[in-house]
């Protein structure tokens, strides 16, 4: 009998290089999103809302802010005796130490953590996806199928299918027949969401085998899943319908942010039945000045708005000066748009400053979204 039913391993070590300036100093899961949240909030909140009380957070790339933010896990009610959040960075042993070489290797290096908790099942998650999901339902499905591995999937538009790991499954019972990473000619539009539930003994065996395989890139999608499939293991899909986004690129970050706006957004940050929790910084309510205008916006605590803001997200402690205009933009915490500046279709990093009268960004949607890195100052002529 296992000590615990299910624990989660949250992969949060990736650089998120395609987010460019936004991740030059911090790990992708620690990037601010949706005004007052950080990307990792969504997975941690899902765990808390699904009753999973033990979460190992695997970190590697620029982990300081991420470690500080996650802390004891208290903000997600995950500080429990004999459970809770454990931050798992790479470590040294008597034989030396290595970086995490891939998603599977990161878990392999922490098998002791898993064995210590002795769960019946292990949930593997990415710390950089936006969605609301009750993992209990996926676990029920895993147990019902008597599966060795359950992969959460969702239908994607056919034209985008070649960007994902595509799964072909038996339509009757969901048993996985084929898994192809980014196929050129997909024969299915069920995409893997990078969320896996393993029966622990299968996971341990697969990882120990994989560690010995010199040719493996130690990746779940590329190596572990195809191998288990080839071995005839019981792999099943769990079909998810709803909002799920990987904000891996600047354009998807911008687009997904904009999706939070409007009358009835698909992802409702206000849904209190399955709340998104965060490690809140205590700042006063925001202030709108006498001439401030806000039209279709999300505005966080601590902001001061004296100019006009349209169809944009203002994170904690942003300032929009007098006569300044902000449109179709995302301002990350502490970003400042000074008097008379005009910012359109842009992402301003944390504590970035756009100086007085500067124009930044273009309404032309064929052009790239303008991005200003954290702490960068944009003056005239830049």
């Amino acid at each position, binding site marked *: 009998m296992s000590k615990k039913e299910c624990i989660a391993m949250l992969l949060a070590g990736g650089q998120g290089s395609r987010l460019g300036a936004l991740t030059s100093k911090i790990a992708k899961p620690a990037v601010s999103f949706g005004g007052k949240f950080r990307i990792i909030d969504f997975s941690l909140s899902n765990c808390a809302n699904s009753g999973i009380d033990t979460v190992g957070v695997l970190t590697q790339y620029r982990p300081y802010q991420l470690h500080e933010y996650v802390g004891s896990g208290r903000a997600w009610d995950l500080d429990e005796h004999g459970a809770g959040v454990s931050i798992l960075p790479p470590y040294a042993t008597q034989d030396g130490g290595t970086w995490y070489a891939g998603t599977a290797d990161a878990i392999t290096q922490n098998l002791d953590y898993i064995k210590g908790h002795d769960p019946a099942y292990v949930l593997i998650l990415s710390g950089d996806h936006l969605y609301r999901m009750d993992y209990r339902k996926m676990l029920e499905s895993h147990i019902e199928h008597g599966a060795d591995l359950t992969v959460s999937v969702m239908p994607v538009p056919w034209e985008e299918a070649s960007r994902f790991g595509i799964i072909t499954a038996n339509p009757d019972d969901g048993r996985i027949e084929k898994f192809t990473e980014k196929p050129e000619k997909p024969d299915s539009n069920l995409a893997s969401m990078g969320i896996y539930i393993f029966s622990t003994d299968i996971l341990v065996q697969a990882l120990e085998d994989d560690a010995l395989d010199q040719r493996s890139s130690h990746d779940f999608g590329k190596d572990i899943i195809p191998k288990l499939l080839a071995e005839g293991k019981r792999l099943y899909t769990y079909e998810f319908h709803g909002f799920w986004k990987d904000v891996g690129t600047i354009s998807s970050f911008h687009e997904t942010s904009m999706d939070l706006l409007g009358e009835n957004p698909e992802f409702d940050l*206000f849904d209190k039945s399955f709340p998104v929790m965060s490690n809140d910084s205590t700042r006063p309510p925001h202030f709108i000045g006498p001439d401030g205008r806000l039209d279709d916006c999300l*505005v966080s605590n601590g902001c001061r708005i004296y100019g006009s803001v349209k169809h944009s997200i203002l994170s904690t402690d942003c300032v929009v000066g007098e006569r300044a205009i902000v449109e179709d933009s995302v301002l990350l915490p502490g970003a400042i748009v000074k008097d008379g500046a005009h910012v359109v279709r842009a992402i301003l990093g944390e504590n970035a400053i756009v100086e007085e009268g500067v124009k930044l960004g273009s309404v032309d949607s064929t052009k790239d979204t303008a991005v200003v890195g954290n702490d960068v100052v944009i003056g005239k002529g830049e």
Partner: protein
Amino acid sequence: MVNRKAIGYITANYTSKDKSALLESRPLASCPFMGRYRLIDFPLSNMMNAGIRTVGVVLPGNYRSLVDHLGSGREWELDRKKGGLFLLQGSAYGTAKHGLRFLLRDIIANKMMFQRASEPYVVMSATNIVFNMNLSDVIDAHERSGAGITMIYTHADRDVDDATRLNIGDCGRVQAVDHGCPYGDNEFLDCFVISRDVLLDICESYASADYLDLFEAIQDDFGRIDVCSYEFKGLAVGMFNEETYYKRSMEMLNPDIMHQLFTHDRPVMTKAHDVAPAKYATGSNACNSFISAGCHIQGTVRNSILSRDVVVESGASVSNAIIMQSCVIKRGARVDNAIIDKNNVIPANTELRGTPDDTLVVPKVPLS
């Protein structure tokens, strides 16, 4: 930095001398202020920012909302192995009286807290007057002066009939206190530093007068005890009844004034909630207002302060108002010069109107 010199003591068991619908369901200490705060956040944060890590809070009879807000005291660094937050008993009598807010009987009843402490000083504070002050400087000044008590005062920026006036003589020595403080005079901020041995001595020597306030009991002995004063030059916001609560809240709608209370180097901490940012719809019209997280603004908001999760529907209008948590102002409703307490739903096309001098107060709606 943790301050090893002082512990804190907050008298949260006082209310307003005037009856108010706002205080029917809560003590003054947990009265909401500036959308997301409660009055007790200010003395707690001042103590936290001074490094004080042991604070006793004297509870009122109706302590539910206060204890809910305080929790383990974590927000103010008070969930600790050593020291931390202590909930103290307090008398229910006399707590609505005019003026002074440090009843000797309550201090004596909680004497054990002062006996057990190793820190040499105690900072005592009430909750009616909010300000953001570096209390470490006051503790250091108190230590240097060798005084028994150091009372913090400011020059009153208006007539305050429910504040205490300090009569200050040579070398800043306080000679007497009296009730009511006219404009420009020395207004006691209901906050002082007292040496712990002096406090314990007072508990012994004046026990027979325990029905008096501390400062009433010792008033003939100010010289012997050596009562000093310390001037605070920043913004102090005293709230003693509905009228001053409304007026002083509205004055905060000037960011220059507001930023004297909310500084980055001395943050005001409060209980955190998981609430999404505020959302503004197309066609919303908000200006000169403070809006908290979780609000949905579709209509018009002017010169107002909104707590979290307030909905202002399209065509609704809120002006010169304080709207507390989870109220809904329905389509076409108008609210002006009013304080709307928690959980009220203002029906469509209704009008609630006070005047600048006679604010309309709508009491909290109990959950059904």
